[in-house]
């Protein structure tokens, strides 16, 4: 039973003065709907395009879209809580005589209970389905898919780049440009890239933030992540797996350049590094380090590294 300030046992649903109780639920819901709509629209139009990780690639713009959808769903929830709290604080506050100290009892309200359960169930299951689908689209959403990806891109000219982690730096091999290995990560615009991520020692994690790419680098594993570039510019690369003393220094930058600039860079670098490339082991997707320590060599796993679509830049047929 509701209590009043300054009077005893008023009937539920009325104020102490006997005036009929206003339609609190309708007021709250109306206010909540309006403010949710306004805030969602403002968020989507003003903040949404600037949310991380940006839209440099298909994976990045996919992640940004997912984040925006989650925010659009989450904002009405938090606004609903705040609306209820604010409304209750204002209308049911202890103030003048005759005002309700507690609102009308809500238990036993069938419509409210069903509405709450249906609403939360739809929201949670909807986000589950949405999140699962978005993990797949596009082509694994930038995450490492292991050595045999289920979700592959549709492009038939994918540029393969092998990302090699070691304590404590990243190097990159370009198999369709003779297999040279460099510390520079340069990729062409408007191109689908297959990052083949591996490690020569411990577990690292290749995180190209603005590309929306994040894949664990495990020794003797080929972890593949796809994306398609959309914008020119610089992106950061860091290790996201605590990997030892200088883990924090395992940090650098990569660049998305035009296709012409990329072709020129790749051809020039291939020529510059030719002498050292001859000394590298034959290109393979994984390498087995010598477990005895300093005594050298990393060894191929003898699995054919060349696919039918990862041929971008191939001057020689390697299919």
């Amino acid at each position, binding site marked *: 039973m509701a209590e009043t300030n300054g009077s005893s046992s008023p009937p539920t649903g009325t104020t102490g003065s006997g005036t009929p109780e206003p339609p609190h639920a309708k007021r709250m819901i109306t206010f909540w709907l309006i403010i949710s709509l306004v805030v969602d629209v403002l968020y989507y139009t003003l903040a949404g395009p600037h949310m991380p990780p940006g839209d440099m690639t298909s994976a990045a713009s996919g992640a940004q879209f997912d984040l925006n959808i989650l925010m659009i769903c989450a904002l009405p929830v938090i606004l609903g809580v705040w609306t209820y709290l604010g409304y209750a604080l204002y209308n049911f506050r202890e103030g003048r005589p005759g005002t309700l100290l507690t609102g009308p009892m809500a238990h036993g309200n069938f419509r409210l209970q069903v509405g709450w359960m249906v609403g939360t169930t739809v929201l949670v299951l909807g986000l589950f389905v949405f999140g699962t689908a978005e993990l797949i689209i596009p082509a694994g959403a930038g995450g490492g898919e292991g050595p045999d990806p289920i979700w592959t891109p549709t492009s038939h000219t994918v540029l393969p780049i092998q990302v090699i982690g070691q304590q404590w730096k990243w190097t990159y091999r370009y198999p369709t440009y003779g297999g040279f290995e460099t510390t520079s990560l340069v990729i062409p615009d408007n191109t689908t890239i297959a990052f083949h991520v591996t490690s020569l020692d411990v577990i690292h994690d290749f995180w190209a933030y603005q590309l929306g790419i994040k894949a664990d680098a495990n020794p003797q594993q080929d972890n593949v992540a796809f994306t398609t570039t959309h914008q020119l510019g610089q992106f950061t690369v860091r290790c996201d797996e605590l990997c030892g003393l200088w883990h924090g220094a395992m940090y650098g930058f990569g660049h998305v350049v035009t296709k012409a600039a990329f072709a020129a860079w790749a051809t020039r670098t291939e020529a510059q590094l030719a002498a050292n490339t001859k000394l590298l082991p034959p290109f393979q997707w994984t390498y087995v380090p010598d477990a005895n*320590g300093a005594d050298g*060599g990393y060894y191929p796993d003898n699995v054919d590294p060349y696919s039918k679509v990862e041929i971008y830049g191939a001057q020689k047929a390697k299919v």
Partner: protein
Amino acid sequence: MRMARSTRIALVAVVLGIATGLIVFVGMAYVRTSPPTVDFATGHRAGQAVNVHMQTVGTYGKGTHPTWVSYLIQDPKTGRWVHTTLLDVPADTRVNFTIYQFDSGSPLRNQQVGLVQGTIGGKMSVNGKSLRLLNSYSNAGVAHTFSIPTLGVNVPLLGVSSPNLCGVAPCSTARWPHNVVRFSFVTPKAVGQYAWQCFVPCGAGWLYGNGGPMQTIGYMDGLLKVVQA
């Protein structure tokens, strides 16, 4: 004579306080233990090059880890070899490195670090011979590298081909077989700490060679501290 209760409480509190302080002091002293920093910046004049002398040894030969491989740096003021990998150098200054390499070599796990990179002219001098690349599968292999990944500097150090290697640091160039590696680069204008390391997994006895000295400042990892002179 019997002490008053308040006196006894005060005495116990004082003893506990002293004991706690000692434990914290010893703990912090242990945690904050760091090799010394060799100073190449104080007194540096603008436009003047800095000369850094280092040596790499197969086993340090004494102390807590006598079997660990290690770098040492020569103090420019005293001429003494200091067991450390921390050095202060002035910003925007040419630094000439001379590394006396006393350790044996092997083929590289990743020949990519056989390339000389980030030095002036993209080259180094090994026993007076100018090189841009070290083939780790020939000669005596590569013993260690001096690498600062964030500055793009990488210099492979040729291994010593001799059964008679120096086992206790500092090693004398007059007595033990060694290679002399020289190279230069210009320090960045921005002050800061730049991690440097060896990229040869030379922690013998550790899984994949990456433990022990490979993970310890003062042995095969260090900081190039770029400061305003």
